[in-house]
């Protein structure tokens, strides 16, 4: 309560207006898509003129005989996103704990490396990844893309989880050890429950990131067997035989729906990632 009163010079409606203006472009874009997907636009016009469900035909018929159906692709996307996020979480949980608790010599180096890896241009690694995947026999398989995506997401995951581990007081672990528990038991029963909010947020975020991934599946799994929604959409728009903006927008709607739903359901959990707090 006191916070609000503490900043007398800044009006609240003022701020809401500024932030709204800043988020407006994204909201408008999304509104465009919703309208367009169920409308038949006059050619070249910005505003739609009629109502038309034809764009949603991909749900019940195959758009292109050379490609798998939408449901197969959606299933692939789901597998890709969930396996990726689960592996990222599993690795981050352990690596971040080590980074948070131990003061080993190269600690600083690893930590800074994590950030850079997160910002490293994927495209420059593509060739090497390509060769390695082919060597491992994982090129053009979902497993290969998952492996690469998880490796690239890992730095972010470790970084987030480290923030949460850092907030768990050191004394709690020492108390657990004094209580006779093994290191593993301490971590599992005493520390983990306290970083659980961070874990949930990371799970959601890396799921969303996997769901949205485009470049990796495009380059590393171009075949029909490992198509995900992003590459499917790309195929729809790129293919000259089926090019159809209305269809593309409808698929886009279908594609982004889980993101919106997850956002609405897990809004509160996502909030936890700020501050890395344990208030749950």
């Amino acid at each position, binding site marked *: 309560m006191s916070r609000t009163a503490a900043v007398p010079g800044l009006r609240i409606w003022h701020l809401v207006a500024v932030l709204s203006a800043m988020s407006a472009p994204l909201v408008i874009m999304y509104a465009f898509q919703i309208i367009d997907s169920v409308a038949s636009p006059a050619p070249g016009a910005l505003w739609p003129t009629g109502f038309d469900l034809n764009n949603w035909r991909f749900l019940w018929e195959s758009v292109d005989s050379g490609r798998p159906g939408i449901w197969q692709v959606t299933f692939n996307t789901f597998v890709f996103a969930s396996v990726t996020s689960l592996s990222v979480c599993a690795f981050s949980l352990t690596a971040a704990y080590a980074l948070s608790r131990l003061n080993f010599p190269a600690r600083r180096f690893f930590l800074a490396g994590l950030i850079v890896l997160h910002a490293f241009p994927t495209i420059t690694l593509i060739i090497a990844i390509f060769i390695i995947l082919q060597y491992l026999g994982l090129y053009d398989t979902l497993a290969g893309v998952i492996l690469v995506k998880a490796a690239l997401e890992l730095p972010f995951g470790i970084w987030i989880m480290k923030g949460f581990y850092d907030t768990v*007081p050191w*004394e*709690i672990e*020492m*108390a*657990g*050890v*004094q*209580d*006779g*528990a*093994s290191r593993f*038991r301490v971590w599992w*029963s*005493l520390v983990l*429950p*306290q970083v659980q909010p961070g874990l949930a947020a990371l799970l959601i975020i890396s799921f969303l990131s996997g769901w949205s991934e485009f470049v990796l599946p495009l380059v590393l799994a171009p075949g029909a067997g490992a198509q995900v929604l992003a590459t499917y959409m790309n195929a729809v728009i790129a293919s000259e035989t089926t090019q159809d903006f209305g269809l593309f927008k409808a698929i886009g709607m279908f594609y982004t729906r889980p993101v919106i739903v997850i956002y609405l359901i897990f809004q509160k959990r996502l909030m936890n990632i700020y501050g890395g707090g*344990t208030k749950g």
Partner: protein
Amino acid sequence: MELILSKFTKRFGATTVISEMDLHVGAGEMLALLGPSGCGKSTTLFAICGIHRMDGGSLHFGDRDVTTLPAQRRSVKVVFQNYALYPHMSVSDNIAFPLRVKRHDRATITRKVGAIAELVHIGELLDRKPAQLSGGQQQRVALARAMVREPDVLLLDEPLANLDAKLRLEMRTEIRRVQRETGITAILVTHDQVEAMSMCDRIALMRAGQIEQLATPVQMYENPANQFVAGFMGNPPISFLPAHLGERITLSGGNSLPRPDRLAGQGPITLGLRPEHLGPQFGQGLRGTITFVEPQGREDLIDVRLTGGEALRAILPSGHGHAIGDSVDWGVRGDRLLAFSTDGERI
């Protein structure tokens, strides 16, 4: 259970923090490790409970050598300054955790948790989460969790530092009561001399990794080994005055005091004068002016500047009638006068 620490040495990197320290705590005794921050008292505590490895020396609980035993297998418990309660567990789960780890059966756990909760007076809080407890209640839970497996030694790391003045008074008595009732051997680490004096059987006053004096509270207060000990014990603190020991004890500005018989030698000394040993009830001898009066309820702190410029502090029961600016000529209680050589040793 007796605790014997012999020739304990601890280094951090190249710095030797504690070198060859000896400490003996009797069975059922409560001992205070007292000292300013950085004196090595927490390091000693962490070595005893097994968090720090010892770089030299040995540690025995009774006859048992525990020097190299991991923390999990020493029968010693720490109550941390921030309590370190497990925030996601209820109070009863917190207390039961050490028993669960040892795979006690459910009935035993319930019984022991109930008994210890009764002992520390938190019987009605067992279903709460730590966040729903006040500071004093959290302290009690931490104490219960530490005591439930009946450790040989209980370590308390500044247990009252996070409590407010009133609770501190209450928990001080409580911790001491629980320690007495269970007869556990306990070590209290603190920087507050009042805490150490009021809670412990003996006090080890540390400075820079050394024990300066190890004695009972009363001995340490009345008979300090050196100037550091005298200055550390007592609130309001003792006043130190430069003086000269001759026929009489001479101060600057023409003030002098009769020389107590027990003081030998002569030359420059530092005089230590506790506030309660200065005042009109002890006759006359020190002339000066009152510079400050601080009421404290039942008594007042009075700052006096002597004619020679030295600052002294006296404590008088309220209703003494003195005010700032008054000239006074007060005496001291000669048998309680402390004298130190210029290098700080007691004469």
